[in-house]
């Protein structure tokens, strides 16, 4: 009878310990995933800042008009301008070449659904952009979108949105900031 108490206590204890290990492992994975998501979002903003800076050099003849030209386009025109809306951000096969793919006005909520994964494949962050080993992240897919909203011709809000799925649902990191064309203003 007394040993039965010990056995029952031991079983309950080990069960709690096992659950605890799973929970801690889950929390550690979540922490790694969060860190990856935050850095992926920050990379998105840094990429847009880099695109703006490079455009100033690429289109030095008219930096006021061409400051937000798509990085993969070599001609500054209204057609090639980064417009308001959502974009997927990739590195092309060329080293250090960013590519912004317009995906229309698709809202980020679409990523909640597994069935949308294929449809939104262009949002999937390239493996090369994430430096943490995929195994440590639980082989999770990270989706990144860049949302562009014009405030004036010289000022836009950019929001880097990264989403990923965990056992408790879709997690999102939003990182907003501004871009301005402050170098090309003439104050008379």
């Amino acid at each position: 009878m007394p040993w039965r108490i010990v056995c029952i206590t031991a079983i309950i204890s080990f069960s709690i310990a096992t659950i605890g290990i799973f929970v801690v492992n889950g929390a550690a994975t979540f922490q790694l995933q969060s860190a990856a998501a935050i850095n992926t979002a920050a990379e998105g903003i840094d990429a847009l800042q880099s695109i703006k800076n490079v455009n100033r050099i690429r289109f030095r003849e008219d930096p006021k008009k061409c400051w937000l030209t798509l990085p993969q386009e070599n001609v500054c025109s209204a057609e090639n301008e980064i417009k308001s809306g959502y974009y997927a951000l990739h590195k092309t096969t060329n080293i250090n070449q960013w590519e912004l793919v317009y995906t229309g006005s698709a809202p980020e909520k679409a990523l909640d659904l597994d069935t949308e994964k294929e449809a939104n494949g262009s949002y999937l962050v390239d493996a090369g952009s994430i430096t943490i080993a995929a195994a440590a992240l639980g082989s999770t897919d990270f989706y990144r979108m860049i949302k562009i909203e014009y405030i004036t011709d010289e000022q836009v809000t950019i929001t880097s949105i990264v989403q990923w799925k965990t056992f408790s649902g879709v997690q999102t990191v939003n990182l907003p900031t501004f871009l301005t064309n402050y170098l090309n203003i003439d104050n008379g």
Partner: protein
Amino acid sequence: MVNFRGTKRKHNTKKGVSLLIAIMLIGVISYVSLSMTNAVVEATRQAANSNRYNEAYYAAEGGLVLGLLENSKHGAGYSATLPPKNYGGGAAAAAVKIQGQVPVDAKYGSMSTYFNMYGAPAPGTGNVGKDCDPLKAFKNMNFWYTADGTPHYVEGTSQPQDGKTWFGPFDAADHPCNWNKIKIGETMSIPLYYSTTDVNSGCPEYPSNSGNYVCNLATSQQDAFILRVRTPCGNGEEMCLAMDRYDFDISNQDPTYGLNKPIMSWQITGADMGTNATLVLGPYIYIYGTPPSLKSQSTIIHEYKLNAANGNGTFEVLTEAAQGEETGTKCLGPMLAYLLPNTANACADGSDWSSTAIIKPVLKLSIIQSMTSDLQKKIPYLEYQFLSDFASGTPPTDTSQTITSEGFSGEFKATIEARKSQSSGLLEYVVQQ
């Protein structure tokens, strides 16, 4: 009886041991569970904090580019505070401050020779000293300097008695954090105006920039300003006695200027408000004799003047009363007379400068000659400081526009500061976390 008692005691002992083991197990598991809970909470907190810090940082960065945009729309001397801006409906916000004028409270105090004058660069923001901090600026008390360990500077009139070698007392205005460097070939601009969006300022609206008003700092005959220039310390330190600064070599004969070569030239440039014509006032250069010699009364900043300013420790090389020469007509007059509207100068009849006011006047300084000391060493740069006391009480425009952006997200704050020199488009960044 004895056996019965013995069996019962044995049974009780077993129960006690089991209970003890159970309690110990529960204790160990409770401890492990608490540790795990703590680890989970800590992991979640770290993830949230990391996100919050990034939000604050990028909010500050967004605020900074907004501030730079706003600054670009106005120009030199523009000061403003932009209201905190929320980002994309998120938790982060940024407050932005543009400081183009020397702060109102940055006047030199009563202990200084330059009591009640403003300095540009603003005290504590110069680039001659290391680790300058405007919040710890020297502008009131005299100070002492030692190269023997930190702190290098101590305020006070009495020499510190700690066994170190101290030099002093120095005037607060002489602190290296109150001076800027100028190198050979560089041109430094000191705007003699400030920009504002205040429609009640009484200043003219700049024609090509609607809503932007440009106010001249000089408005009265009582206005005073002093340009101070000094050589760096001969031993390479940032501070020393005046006698330990480089002196210029005045033993070499120059075919144009004789023994006294011009080192730093200055110009006041601007536009005539009536005709929009460009106006240029340069230094008075007087060369006389055989062989030719640059005379001391010349207002171009020459070696004799710099050596004398070093010798008496004032470092003063130019004031508002110095004679300037119109580049076109060669008319002469005091600098201040040219800056004030409707003021007669030495040749009012033939002057290019009309009776209407000059708009956007800028004092430009440039080193035009390689510099050699009397010990035949190369002098790498000069240090300059512009002091002013305008009758209107208006602080002068600083040598750089400072844009400070503070991003907030929850308890996290990130501060980014950019300084844009009035002389160039280059930005100098400081990030505080």
